[in-house]
């Protein structure tokens, strides 16, 4: 148990590093809000290897800390909306057990973008922001796929580490 707590700290630090790396990458395609979602990599792996509670905990803490470090109150709000909705979606899809980790990540990516778009339209009180919906949908699928493939490959390799070291 003690060991797991320590590892959770390491994973949180790792997620924060990924947030930082992502904030450094100039990743811009003419539509605001499109990003790689690198941190989702660690959230997906934790969801599969450690469990729902642990992954959710890291996800929320990561969003709040990264918001204070690299963003502002607004970015925290948007990240939380996207992060929580996509987490719920991935959790449900994983629970039902019908889909592959890549598919779960793709659905998470889409849900993340759509939740942020819905929140944006509520905040600006204008449906005009849905003009970006198609681009955000597609980017959710593509980045979700990329992150999913990476997560599947990494998970294969760290499975033993989780089983023998972290979960003890």
């Amino acid at each position, binding site marked *: 148990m003690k060991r797991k707590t320590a590892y959770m700290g390491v994973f949180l630090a790792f997620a924060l590093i990924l947030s930082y790396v992502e904030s450094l990458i100039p990743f811009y395609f003419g539509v605001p*809000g499109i990003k790689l979602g690198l941190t989702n990599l660690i959230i997906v792996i934790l969801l599969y290897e450690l469990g729902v509670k642990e992954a959710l905990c890291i996800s929320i803490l990561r969003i709040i800390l990264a918001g204070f470090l690299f963003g502002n109150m607004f970015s925290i709000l948007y990240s939380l909306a996207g992060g929580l909705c996509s987490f719920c979606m991935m959790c449900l899809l994983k629970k039902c057990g019908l889909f592959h*980790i890549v598919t779960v990540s*793709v659905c998470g990516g889409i849900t993340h973008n759509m939740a942020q778009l819905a929140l944006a339209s509520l905040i600006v*009180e204008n449906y005009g922001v849905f*003009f970006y919906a198609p681009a955000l949908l597609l980017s959710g699928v593509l980045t979700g796929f990329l992150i999913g493939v990476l997560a599947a490959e990494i998970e294969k390799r760290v499975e033993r580490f989780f089983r023998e070291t972290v979960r003890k």
Partner: protein
Amino acid sequence: MRKLGKRDVMLMMVLLFFCFAAFLIRKLAGGTEGAYVLVTVDGEIFGEYPLCEEREIPIKIAGETVNRLKIGGGAADMIWADCPDKLCVRQKPVSKENETIVCLPHRVVITVEGAAENGFDSIAR
């Protein structure tokens, strides 16, 4: 870990199909050159400006200029913002119907409107 199954491929295909359907709907709904831009702040109309004239509009919230919108050559472009992320400034100029520039921190939305509604609106106002 098992391989990608038929179900996964099917679901992803459906999702991709939805993406392209969304692009298509947007293409069908817009596409024509707009006549004027509608600027809203916090859901309320700030102003309407025809796209045909050249001008620069300071968008003010509580007397302070937060964004600058430049209209010229039939397009509108956000050229300045006082927020740190500058996402709205990096967006391309908009000219076609329903195209939008959003400044989330200030809740400013700029939408290009078509000519059809313009006639009615200019009479109504």
